[in-house]
Structures are given as structure tokens and as C-alpha cells.
């Protein structure tokens, strides 16, 4: 084991278990509190903007409280796609973290960024095939969860 001579040191730095555990101390900590503040503020502002758009559609286009959600979501998605295309949304994302990822605009960004990025691989396999590369998981788990929750609830009412 002449080749391993160099690794026969003692202390955490020289064992696999110790290293994975202790090397953490060298990493700058994520500024969790500040990140949360930014996420809260930006996320809140996007929702307040959504409220404004909702009120706009109710006031000027005769939508009701119940169905104004649809044009609101579509408008926010349109804005997010524009910001993604102009190369701004990734910078907002670096600043806001979950604040710009959790609102529906983040969903739109994950769809649009994949579509734009993979355009160089063609319209069908590139854009078409990759559009839901990131957002697909959200739809899959949303649908599966909705199916099973509805199924369980339905069966519950059938039996009792």
C-alpha cells in the first residue's frame, strides 16, 4: 500500500466519515433568515400584483371573484415568460429564491426557460420534448395526488 502512504493521517480530514461531516464548517452558511425575508417579500409582492390583476379583470372585464383566477394566472404566466426571455427572471430567482419560484410565475419560468434553452436541439425534440423537463414533476405529483385524494374521499363517502 505504498501509494496510500500519503493518506495515513489522523483526524477527521483523513477519514471519509469524518470529512463529510466536518468539512461543512468551511462552507459559508446559507443566509437562511435573509433568504426567507427576500422570499417572503418578493413572493408577497407577486401575489399582491396578482390581486391587482384580479381586481382589474373584475372591474373592467366583468369577471367574477370565482373565475377571475384564470385570466390572472394567464397574465402572470405571460409576464414571467417575457421576463424569462429577456434574461431577467434568473436574476430575480437568484435574489428571491422561493419567492419567485413558488408563485405560478416560477412554474412559467421553468417551462419557458427549458423551451428557450433547448430550441437549439430542434422544435420537436428540443422545445417540445424538454418543455416540461422541470415543470413535469409538479404536474405528475399534482395529478397523482389529486387522483388518490379524490378516490379515497369518494370511496369513503360510498362506504359510509
Amino acid at each position, binding site marked *: 500500500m505504498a501509494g496510500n502512504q500519503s493518506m495515513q493521517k489522523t483526524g477527521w480530514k483523513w477519514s471519509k466519515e469524518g470529512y463529510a461531516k466536518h468539512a461543512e464548517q468551511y462552507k459559508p452558511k446559507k443566509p437562511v433568515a435573509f433568504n426567507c425575508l427576500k422570499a417572503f417579500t*418578493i413572493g408577497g409582492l407577486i401575489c*399582491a400584483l396578482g390581486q391587482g390583476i384580479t381586481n382589474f379583470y373584475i372591474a373592467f372585464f366583468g369577471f367574477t371573484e370565482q373565475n377571475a383566477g384564470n385570466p390572472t394566472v394567464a397574465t402572470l404566466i405571460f409576464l414571467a415568460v*417575457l421576463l424569462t426571455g429577456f434574461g431577467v427572471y434568473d436574476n430575480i430567482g437568484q435574489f428571491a429564491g422561493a419567492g419567485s419560484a413558488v408563485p405560478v410565475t*416560477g412554474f*412559467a419560468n421553468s417551462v419557458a426557460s427549458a423551451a428557450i434553452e433547448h430550441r437549439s436541439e430542434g422544435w420537436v425534440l428540443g422545445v417540445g420534448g424538454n418543455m416540461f423537463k422541470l415543470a413535469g414533476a409538479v*404536474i405528475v405529483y*399534482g*395529478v397523482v395526488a389529486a387522483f388518490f385524494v379524490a378516490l379515497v374521499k369518494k370511496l369513503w363517502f360510498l362506504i359510509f
Partner: protein
Amino acid sequence: MSEYFIAFLVGGFICLIGQLMLDLTKMTPAHVMSTLVVAGVVMDGLGLYDPLIDFAGAGATVPITSFGHALYHGAWAEAEKNGLIGIITGIFEVPSAGISSAIVFGFLGALVFKPKG
């Protein structure tokens, strides 16, 4: 004015939960979004999400949790009308606006824009 403030608070709070999941666990953004969608489904299944929308407006409809609410809502409404098959036919009824506009605008985005790097 207070409805904007409530939307801000509730929406911001949901984002804050997402940020905590990102920062304190090893979850990737895709894991966090999937979890929040499932949370939205479960909350609506328990009948909790509609009151939240009544209270917070866009603060509850804009975050991705409302996508779960929409998926479940359609599934349940159809299930009540048409029985079990309604779950399958109804799932995409309500969230259609979100999915369709994301696809169409995403496609148009790819048509117009080039990645900026």
C-alpha cells in the same frame, strides 16, 4: 387596500415555507414545488383551501399550491357528478388556464427569444 396586504402576507408566507424547505433540507426546487402542489391537493381534500382563497384572494391563488387545489377541485367536482370516472375526466378541468397558457406562451417564448446565459 387591505386585500392587497392580506394577499401579500399569505402569499409571502407560502413562499417563506418554500424557502425554508430549500435552505434547511436537501430538496431541489423541483422537490419543493412537487411537495407544495401535493400539499395544496391535500388541503383542498380536507376542505381547507377554499376558505384560504376566500380570505387571501391572490395570496392563495397565485402560489403553486393553488395548482394542486385546482387539480383536486376539478377531479372532485366531476366525481360528485359522474362517479369514479369523474376523477379521471375532471382533473385537468380547472387548472387548464395555467397549463395551457404556460405551454402556449412558453412555445411563443422559444419562438422569439434566445437564451441570454
